[in-house]
């Protein structure tokens, strides 16, 4: 293990685990987590796992890469990595991000302004391996030496004299999953360099060339999505059954049966939810059904394979998987003859279909796509349904999902909604486009294997936890119930795990939910409280 300050060369030369995380060095948390005893310990990997899988970065594991058995296999993988790198730097293979990548590779001034913007780097107590430029510099060095074949004087002068070997490649693969792609770093860069993009491209290289990606994102994620219909594994029939169950549940809750329209041809809107909602937070799609029914919105859900799951994990690691899912979503909308696709409360699904796939969908597949938030704002602010804000009379703060806010510019509508219906709404600091990621971004929220969740809640979500605690410091007593509003399935998943990890409900009375739940909770026609608080 490295004792002195880590350098890029250590990526290929250090033996064993490269860095050891020390909790006492982590960023301090506010009351009541300001003592060492309040920090849950980080789990270690078993010796068995360590022996079988590559985990020599920081002792945590996001991707299960089996250790190569021979030198030849290592060499083959290193060569494949270089093949992938060449493809990443070719416009035919990587037209999708060619210009942004070249710019970010060529123009970094190494001023390190971006470092302090990164929640992972700061939360870890500024561990060098998590510095936003660390992996970017590693990639630049490999490009200069092995792809552009620069001479030794050049490499010496630019400090890019590193050795590429399997250790380096395996560590880089893991390191590509120590960044949530939140792009907060890019926001502060005086040049415009984007370390988040470099991470994204590195992930693509591993997936598109070596077939290496976390199984929750690829095999059990986008592949399952395309083949079975949903990344949750939910098949078509199960989806129909789920809707029936939700309709029963709604009837029980509000005393009125609402039909959730499926495959209604010619509807105005195709509404697509993250299918995780149906399984983990069914009250969210139900709330949409209640609101849209009350406001008279003409919409339909789809029971087509892929059409009932808005997620698009390709956004995080693979352009082809991204395009495949986006094309399928568009095809379903086209076949239904809807006027637009509206995405439910799922940040990455918002960005994938609205922003990224905007330059993949052409011709009659280029169907207008929009967020659910402006429609909800229209309903709430223009009083298309009757609302009584007093029903939400508890402290509320708002989490800004990166994909929806910093990366898509949907900033104010959700605030206007909360200001209208939640009288005790308060902002986290910083918020809006300068928000911090929930810590579960870029797939982390759905990666529960081995000790990765500990790293997520202990490191990548730490800044979010600090923000939440800070926002509620004046009402931190657990007897005062308070709520984090997170209008994104993945963020909700990360925040759920985060609050559980720190036992936050018991210690602070903080719970979480989505945005539509607040709206239904405030509806005059809904007599019983819609928001359910956890049990003590």
């Amino acid at each position, binding site marked *: 293990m490295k004792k002195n*300050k880590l350098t890029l060369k250590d990526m290929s030369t250090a033996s064993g685990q490269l860095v050891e995380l020390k909790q006492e060095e982590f960023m301090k948390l506010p009351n009541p987590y300001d003592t060492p005893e309040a920090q849950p310990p980080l789990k270690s990997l078993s010796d068995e796992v360590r022996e079988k899988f590559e985990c020599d970065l920081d002792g945590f594991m996001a991707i299960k890469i089996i250790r190569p058995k021979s030198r030849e296999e290592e060499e083959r993988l290193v060569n494949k990595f270089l093949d992938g790198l060449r493809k990443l730097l070719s416009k035919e293979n990587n*037209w999708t991000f060619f210009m942004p990548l070249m710019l970010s590779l060529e123009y970094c001034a190494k001023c390190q302004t971006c470092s302090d913007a990164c929640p992972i780097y700061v939360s870890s107590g500024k561990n060098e391996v998590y510095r936003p430029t660390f992996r970017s510099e590693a990639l630049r060095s490999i490009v200069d030496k092995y792809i552009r074949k620069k001479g030794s004087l050049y490499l010496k002068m630019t400090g890019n004299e590193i050795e590429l070997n399997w250790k380096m490649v395996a560590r880089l693969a893991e390191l590509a999953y120590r960044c949530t792609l939140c792009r907060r770093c890019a926001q502060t860069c005086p040049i415009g360099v984007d370390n988040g993009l470099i991470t994204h491209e590195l992930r693509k290289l591993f997936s598109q060339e070596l077939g290496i990606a976390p199984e929750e994102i690829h095999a059990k994620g986008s592949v399952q999505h395309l083949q079975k219909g949903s990344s949750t594994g939910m098949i078509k029939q199960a989806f129909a059954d789920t809707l029936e169950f939700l309709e029963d549940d709604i009837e029980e809750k509000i005393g009125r049966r609402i039909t959730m329209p499926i495959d209604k041809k010619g509807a105005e809107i195709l509404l697509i939810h993250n299918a995780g909602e149906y399984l983990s937070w069914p009250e969210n799609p139900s709330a949409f059904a209640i609101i849209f029914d009350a406001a008279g919105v003409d919409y339909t859900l789809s029971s087509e394979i892929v059409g009932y799951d808005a997620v698009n994990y390709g956004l995080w690691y693979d352009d082809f998987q991204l395009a*495949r899912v986006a094309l399928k979503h568009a095809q379903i909308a086209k076949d239904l003859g809807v006027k637009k696709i509206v995405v439910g409360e799922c940040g990455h699904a918002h960005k994938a279909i609205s922003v990224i796939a905007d330059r993949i969908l052409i011709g009659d597949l280029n169907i207008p796509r929009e967020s659910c938030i402006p429609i909800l704002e229209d309903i709430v602010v223009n009083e298309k349904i009757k609302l009584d804000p007093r029903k939400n009379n508890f402290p509320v703060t708002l989490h800004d999902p990166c994909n929806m806010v910093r990366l898509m510019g949907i900033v104010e509508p959700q605030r206007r909604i909360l200001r209208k219906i939640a009288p005790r709404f308060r902002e986290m600091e910083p918020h809006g486009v300068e928000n911090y990621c929930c810590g579960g971004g870029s797939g982390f929220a759905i990666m529960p294997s081995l000790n990765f969740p500990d790293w997520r809640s202990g490191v990548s979500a730490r800044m979010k936890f600090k923000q939440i605690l800070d926002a509620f410091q004046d009402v931190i007593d657990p007897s005062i119930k308070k709520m984090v509003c997170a209008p994104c399935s993945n963020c909700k998943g990360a925040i759920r795990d985060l609050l559980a990890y720190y036992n936050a409900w018991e210690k602070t009375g903080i719970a979480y939910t989505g945005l539509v739940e607040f709206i239904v909770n405030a509806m005059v026609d809904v007599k019983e409280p819609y928001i359910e608080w956890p049990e003590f």
Partner: protein
Amino acid sequence: MTWLPYLSYISVLVLVVGIFAKVIKYLRMPIHLRWELYPIPHEKKDGSYFEEVDWWKKPRKKHYLNQIIFMAQEILFIRALYHHNRKMWYASFPFHFGLYLVIGWLALLVGGALLKIFWVASGLAETLLAVAVVVGVTGMILGIIGCVGLLIIRATSSDLHGYTAPVDYFNILFIFAVLGSGIIAWVSADPRFSIVQEYIRRLITFSAATTTSKTIAWHIALFSLFLIYLPFTHMTHFFMKYFMWDKVRFEDEPNFRGSDMEGKIAKALTYTQNWSAPHIQTGKKWSETASKGVE
């Protein structure tokens, strides 16, 4: 020093061709997927058109003036550094602003020389020269202060030290030498910069350009060498920012059916890709691979 004008001509040529080549390289790149980052100054404050219902039916409002103001602050005052890295800004701002003034100084000298060529000894040319002295000397002094500051920060900051390569020190020292030699030439040989301007006038008119002053010759030589070196370094970020900001970070132009953009996308979709992971059908067109699904 008969070689001096040749060096100057070469430097201008290399600089122009180098910048041109870089710009062309990026202009010829294919369209890329959107990767914008908010806030985008030509949109409404912090937000975007995605905040509106049926945004595609509404007229697109772009506040170009806001974007120009934002970029001007960014370029002239290094706004991002001021907000996010104040310590470095104290050195980086005088460094960059000094260099801008030096570019202004050069422009004034060239402008004055042109006036003299086409408008024989006008009073305006003399005024320009007087302004050039103030602008040039201020720029050189600020630049030198910036160089020293940057050297100190890079050498002493634990954050920066490990990421500062020999070439980074070399670049700063090179600029320091160019500016320092300019100040020496000004103090010792050319207090009105009239000799330098005469040198420029002769360069423009292709008449034997030379100078008898060694200090001025040193300055001109260093300046010329720097112009030759510049296009090959990341220091070209001063104009490549256009691509970084305007073509990536602020680029939120939607793709409408039948638009020029759609044509460019259709072309990119015909590229043949040869990624070789098992879930990708290698050797197929991009669009075929995307529409095929996982096999």
